[in-house]
């Protein structure tokens, strides 16, 4: 299909310190020019009417290919966690990579070990050839330090970043909440928050020794973030991420045994939450992702400890990210570094920025429209959001994937 050139005019471009008025030309599926002076014949023009024009969101670490939810949320690419399957075989990776095309690109993350069992190296090299863009340990970490060391070194030799879940399995065995008043009052098995810092500390030592680049998918505690901050100051190749849940909710959200707030890692204390906000503001946190994990009543309408962890987050990611902007913690451009540019860089994609030559994965954002999160009316195939009922502002109003209009 031949695509006509596209001009998005009268927009606020998110490509610098602050949104600036401008226009953007797309040709052959790529960004051809910013503020073009010459417009080719036959160009289709879209009037952005002063809305933000930003790169499409690249959601780093989702658990399901849930296209309606991603499209609602302005997500043009998603890095799929290897847990379903698990993605430990080149054939599975190849199939997952084709899952959403053309209007959603799925970038499978290769399972670090066979069956994600944490014992034997998976065929990371063959999975890379099949389309895997990074390696991941899945929902849990690799307990065996020897295996982890080999995974890191091996993945690094292939030019792949290893995406890590950081929780010490000895401390968290059987736990469904973080130690604290809420868990104790509810009578829920809980683990100390240091389970995260302990796991991070081990892996940072391995990074220092192997030089392998890593991304801690979710760092949610003050102590964990302190370790990341120190590692970055040392110059270690370390990135870390978070989801809006740990930025905007503390463990009080599990009161009344709300299973939509049963997450992995579990929600933390208010002090840790404040530390996460500070780390988003000071740049310690590099990536904001949804952790999208839609789960129906069969997984969630259960007693708290029997329910499975996870939240449907794709639809609320952008609006909650905009909260950070409105609260003055990050600039719009830094928000889109966290949502798109840094994930693109980690995955090695020509996308994630409003820059000539990049893939034209674009979204228009009305940053002011108020709406209310409603678990019963979600586009996702399950509405398990811990933000049910929360009033938010801002949503994607149009999106293009490789210059192709999706909505």
């Amino acid at each position, binding site marked *: 299909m031949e695509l006509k050139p596209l001009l998005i005019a009268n927009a606020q471009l998110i490509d610098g310190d602050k949104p600036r008025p401008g226009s953007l030309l797309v040709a052959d599926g790529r960004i051809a020019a910013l503020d073009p002076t010459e417009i080719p014949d036959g160009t289709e023009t879209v009037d952005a009417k002063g809305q933000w024009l930003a790169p499409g969101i690249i959601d780093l670490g989702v658990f399901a290919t849930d296209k309606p939810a991603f499209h609602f949320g302005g997500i043009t690419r998603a890095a799929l966690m290897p847990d379903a399957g698990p993605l430990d075989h080149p054939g599975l990776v190849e199939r997952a990579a084709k899952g959403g095309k053309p209007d959603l690109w799925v970038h499978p993350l290769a399972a670090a070990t066979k069956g994600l069992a944490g014992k034997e190296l998976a065929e990371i090299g063959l999975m890379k050839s099949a389309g895997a863009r990074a390696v991941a340990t899945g929902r849990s970490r690799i307990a065996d330090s020897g295996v982890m060391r080999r995974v890191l070194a091996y993945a690094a030799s292939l030019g792949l970043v290893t995406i890590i879940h950081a929780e010490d399995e000895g401390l968290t065995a059987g736990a469904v909440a973080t130690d604290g008043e809420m*868990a*104790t009052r509810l*009578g829920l*098995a809980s683990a100390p928050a240091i389970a995260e810092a302990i796991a991070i500390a081990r892996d940072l030592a391995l990074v220092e020794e192997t030089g392998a680049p890593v991304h801690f998918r979710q760092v949610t505690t003050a102590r964990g973030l302190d370790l990341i901050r120190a590692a970055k100051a040392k110059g270690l190749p370390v990135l870390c991420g978070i989801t809006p849940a740990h930025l905007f909710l503390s463990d009080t959200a599990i009161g009344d045994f709300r299973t939509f707030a049963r997450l992995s890692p579990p929600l933390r204390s208010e002090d840790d939450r404040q530390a996460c906000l500070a780390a988003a503001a000071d740049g310690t946190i590099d990536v904001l992702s949804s952790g999208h994990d839609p789960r129906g*009543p*069969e997984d969630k*309408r259960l*007693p708290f400890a*029997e329910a499975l962890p996870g939240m449907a987050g794709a639809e609320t990611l952008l609006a909650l990210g905009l909260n950070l902007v409105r609260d003055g913690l990050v600039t719009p451009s830094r928000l889109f570094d966290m949502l798109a540019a840094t994930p693109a860089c980690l995955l090695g994609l020509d996308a994630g920025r409003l820059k000539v030559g990049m893939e034209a994965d674009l979204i228009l954002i009305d940053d002011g429209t108020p709406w209310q999160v409603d678990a019963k009316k979600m586009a996702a195939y399950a509405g398990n959001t811990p933000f049910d009922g929360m009033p938010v502002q801002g949503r994607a109003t149009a999106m293009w994937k490789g210059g192709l209009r999706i909505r």
Partner: protein
Amino acid sequence: MTTSTTRPASDYPPGGDAFRHRHLIGIAQLTPWEISYVLDAAEEWVDLNRSGAAKHDDRLAGLTIINAFFENSTRTLLSFEIAGKRLGADVVNMHAAQSSVKKGETLIDTAMTLNAMRADAMVIRHGSSGAVQLIADKVDCPVLNAGDGRHEHPTQALLDALTIRRRKGKVEGLTVAICGDVLHSRVARSNILALTLLGNEVRVVAPPTLTPPAIDRMHVTTFTDMDEGLKDADVVMMLRLQNERMDGAYLPSAREYHALYGLTPKRLEKAQPDAIVMHPGPMNRGVEIDSSVADHPTRSTITEQVEMGVAVRMACLDILTRRQRGVAGWN
């Protein structure tokens, strides 16, 4: 020994305002006067239960009560069954072992099935914290929590409060030491809530491995030394230690636990000379409590607790079904 502390009915708000709950999920939802209201109501049933051969009242005649126990229980189930029958209700027991739960039916589906059978009240025990609340949200009749995971066991706390009140003449201003596996105990949580709410000083005496995190936020003082924790206590409340906790994960062995935390006659001397000894049962004699203490004729309240259990459960069943029965003032 027994001092009556029952208040006149005029001390309470009229009708249904005296107990404004459809269900009894936990002590956490109750006010001090609501607890006291239940205890006063239970006193009447104590008298009836002691009244000789015809221990019967027919106020719940025609009502069906389902005791749905998803976790094994002998004494609590029996206590609820007797309480329901003494009030004239038709009582049906459902054991998890006999139910479709084992066949993979979800808890909600089981609850909806029971609901469709038009029970007038359900008494539920489940191994998961929050499970009883989950069911209560889905059914049309009052639900009584007979124990959910480590969360709450409200009728146990109420019967313990009644036992204390009858023995001590009051259940306020006392020092109560709750000793043992507090971490895994719903009895401890409900008792901490009830006893602190009523204005007692509550101590938690437990090995560090069995002390819940941040338990001090529930307004208790924690002790790891049993002798210190018992010092000058008016009430010593022992908890059952489950065998699976003694295999090395939480405690090295039963004999070490007995050496450090077992309630021996010598240890009991640290408490007030008239301190009472409580245990929710079933006991592990020689582990958390010595037989000579458990069987002490004046200080042990263990059988009295069982007796109060029936009275308290009768009171709860009566109060929670008043709306359905159209009792005046309970709309």
